[in-house]
């Protein structure tokens, strides 16, 4: 493990960058959502204050739960998200392969859900168990379409599975989003990441008004702070992944940086608009939507990609 890798991991594009950008974009999320509801919204640093405040609060642990699992879960998810952000970021900004390819990434992304489910259900809380069941069903729902759109990117890149290679093909031959299969896959991908981040209308596992945050119900203090941080870090990870897979990646010149920032902001704003204009759906409707509508559409995208369109 060289010094450079430690830099990748802890500073840029890993821990520090992802966390700071995530918490800042979290402000945008809260501010915009507030404007949708005719509220003023919080100041820019509110997410940072919240994180630090939660670190100072006491941690309440359920007496007869599996303590170690309960405490470790948010940190496992956190560490895995940092590794994932490093993996994506190095491919995006440095144009190198790092840690693993797209298949590896697809499987690593599942670990967040596993940690959430195990941590939540370690408490023995009924609501957490209900939420755990829903979380894994959501994973099943969006994973099918997500696999397909990843395959679209792979096929369009000429069967390359390295993230840096997929971006390089687009730099050379134009972004996939400009082709029919690419744009379909991108749009389906946008819905998939909405579900993977558990944003409305897919916040079924956490459903505050119904099962009281589900798996997060018993969390408090620093572990809860890290769950919030994890959530906001995903606000950078998933849009970056979409840009990398379909929207041409990143060019390191002045205009390139501006263009990349605009693409990123556009994706995030669309996600926030979707979030604020759609009520939560039931788990069976979500399953049905992804398996019966999103899956066939993304399959069409795959067929088009194989045909070279």
């Amino acid at each position: 493990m060289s010094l450079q890798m430690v830099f990748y991991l802890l500073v840029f594009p890993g821990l520090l960058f992802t966390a700071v950008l995530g918490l800042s974009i979290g402000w945008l999320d809260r501010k915009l959502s507030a404007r949708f509801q005719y509220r003023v919204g919080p100041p820019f640093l509110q997410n940072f204050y919240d994180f630090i405040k939660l670190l100072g609060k006491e941690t309440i642990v359920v007496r007869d739960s599996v303590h170690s699992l309960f405490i470790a879960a948010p940190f496992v998810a956190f560490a895995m998200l940092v590794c994932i952000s490093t993996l994506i970021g190095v491919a995006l900004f440095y144009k190198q392969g790092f840690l693993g390819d797209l298949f590896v990434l697809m499987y690593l992304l599942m670990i967040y859900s596993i940690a959430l489910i195990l941590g939540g259900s370690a408490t023995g809380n009924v609501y957490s168990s209900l939420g755990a069941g829903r979380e894994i069903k959501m994973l099943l729902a969006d994973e099918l379409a997500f696999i397909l759109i990843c395959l679209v990117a792979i096929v369009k890149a000429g069967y390359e599975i390295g993230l840096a290679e997929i971006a390089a093909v687009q730099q050379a031959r134009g972004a996939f989003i400009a082709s029919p299969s690419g744009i379909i896959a991108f749009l389906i991908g946008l819905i998939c990441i909405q579900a993977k981040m558990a944003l409305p209308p897919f916040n079924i596992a956490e459903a505050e008004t119904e099962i009281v945050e589900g798996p997060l119900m018993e969390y408090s203090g620093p572990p809860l702070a890290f769950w919030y941080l994890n959530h906001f870090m995903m606000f950078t990870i998933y849009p970056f992944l979409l840009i990398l897979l379909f929207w041409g990646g990143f060019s390191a010149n002045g205009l390139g940086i501006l263009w990349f920032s605009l693409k990123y902001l556009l994706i995030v704003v669309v996600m926030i608009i979707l979030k604020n204009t759609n009520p939560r759906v039931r788990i069976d409707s979500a399953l049905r939507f992804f398996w019966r509508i999103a899956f066939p559409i993304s399959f069409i995208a795959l067929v088009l990609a194989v045909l070279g369109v």
Partner: protein
Amino acid sequence: MEPSALLTFLFLPAAVAVINLFLPVRAAKALTLLTLLYLLYCAITLWPSASLGSSSVYLGVDRLAAFVLLFAQILSTVILLFSLKGVRRDIERFFFVLFPLTVAFCNGVLLSRHALLFLIFWGLSGVSLYLFALLGKDAEASAAAKKTFIIIGGSDVFLILGLVLLIGSRPVDLWWLDKLNLRPEAPLYWLAFVSLLIASLAKAGGFPLHTWVPDFSKSSPIESVALLPASLDKLLGIFLLARMMTSLFVVGLTVKMIVVSIGAFTIISAVMMALSQHNGRRMLGYHAVSQVGYMIMGVGSGNPLAFAGGLFHMINHTIYKSNLFLSLGSVEKQTGSSEFDDLGGLAKSMPLTFIMALVGALAISGIPPFNGFFSKWMIYQGLLETAKTLPVGYQLWMLICLILAIFGSALTLASFVKFLHAVFLGRNPGTHKVREAPINQWLATGILAILCAIFGLFAVALPLKKLIVPVMVDLGMPEAMQFIGFFHPLLLLGLFAVVFGLGILLYFLVRTVRYDDVYLGGQPADPRFRITGSDFYREVREMPVLNKIFAAADKKYCDVYEMGSKGTFAFSGWLQKLHPGLLPLYILYIFLGLLILGLVINIGG
């Protein structure tokens, strides 16, 4: 390797089985353990010198056989370690006779070079499966034993047919199973291929001949489930398939695609059934079927990388699946049940068993950096590599199979989340007083869990370079290790550990902990409102289209055995109606028969 040295693998365990008949049980256990350890040592020393150069007409060992042999010894030793304490008292004696006997039969299959010998040992290993099934204690045990025997025995018929067709036309001294390379022009080539495919699928538990696996898993002693359907039968079935694809037949593209599709369909259909199970053993049984799909895909595709991945997945599966079966066995022995609704909250009282089961569950779901991921990853790459070179239609076909395989592992994860939740997490006041499994049991599962981690983290350096590459070179596919992607499990673990350590360090610096009861909106925690997790996937079951398929599966429409027996009884019932005991009718039959005979002779003449 001298043929006489190979005989040790057959005669030593068989002799121990006979001796165990007369020894006190304690001594039988010790003797069996020593024997298996010795055989393990022999298999390790056999590995470097394995070649067909000096083998006899009857016995011989190439790299592939030596490789499978090694893992058969490892698995049976670990499973025996688990069985040292905890086998039901009333079956203990017979169990320790049958165990070494099974090992002997399995070794026999692997070491046979002569087709006839292969056939005999293959059949005998099926018999030992039947005998183990008879040792089950619940009401369904004898039915499960019968079903197992009929499917496995029935598939032996196809094995005989296949082998006869394959070598019937050759001189007797060429009844070897290596280097036949039968070409498609050979007479009855297809029939032979299909017959052998049926035999290998039935043994390994591939669709549609898989239905004995869940039934056997449900009612047989759990040690034998870990030994046979989870480990040895997988090794044997895939061993035969690997032989078929490399040295017996020269297989064309369409056939390969069909075999890959069988694999993909096996994965998805079995894992869907696993999702809706309410019994731990049956659920694991369905997974033992679904995982075979990956091996069939890898080995059947003929791509070197996928083939190596298929072999790797085979050994990985034997490791994590026996781990899972044995962990569930520990739970069952401590609590007396394997029904999800009776369990829950055991992570507190059986922490070691929980950790082993967690590792097994992550490995089977393909979560990096455990071993299951690495082999699946190799298979996916191999399939993509093949797809790249195909015409558009085949490309799509291959991609659909690939989608099913990847989605299958998400479904696997889902059903293991249910397993972990229902058995170890959540809350069940009834399991507070349960004690941890005895030392030999968690030692056995612990060895397997450690192997899961080692084979994942050091996949390239250890199992692939040391074992699978030599096998692939021997099979004439030296280019097996050219990955198209890349993955650094150790680096991933290192970086993960750094960040995880930082997070935990921060937590310990700032934490103030208070312990309290579970919070349910101010209500007391009522044990009646308990989520076991066994109904996690009701929505999946109730989806349109899927509900019809599940209903059909519940009626056993996909079960060859049940359908076969229904068909047989319908036919014999019809025959019964023709025998009402009326003399004039029988006289009419005789005349009709004579008439038909006359007509046939007339036409023939």
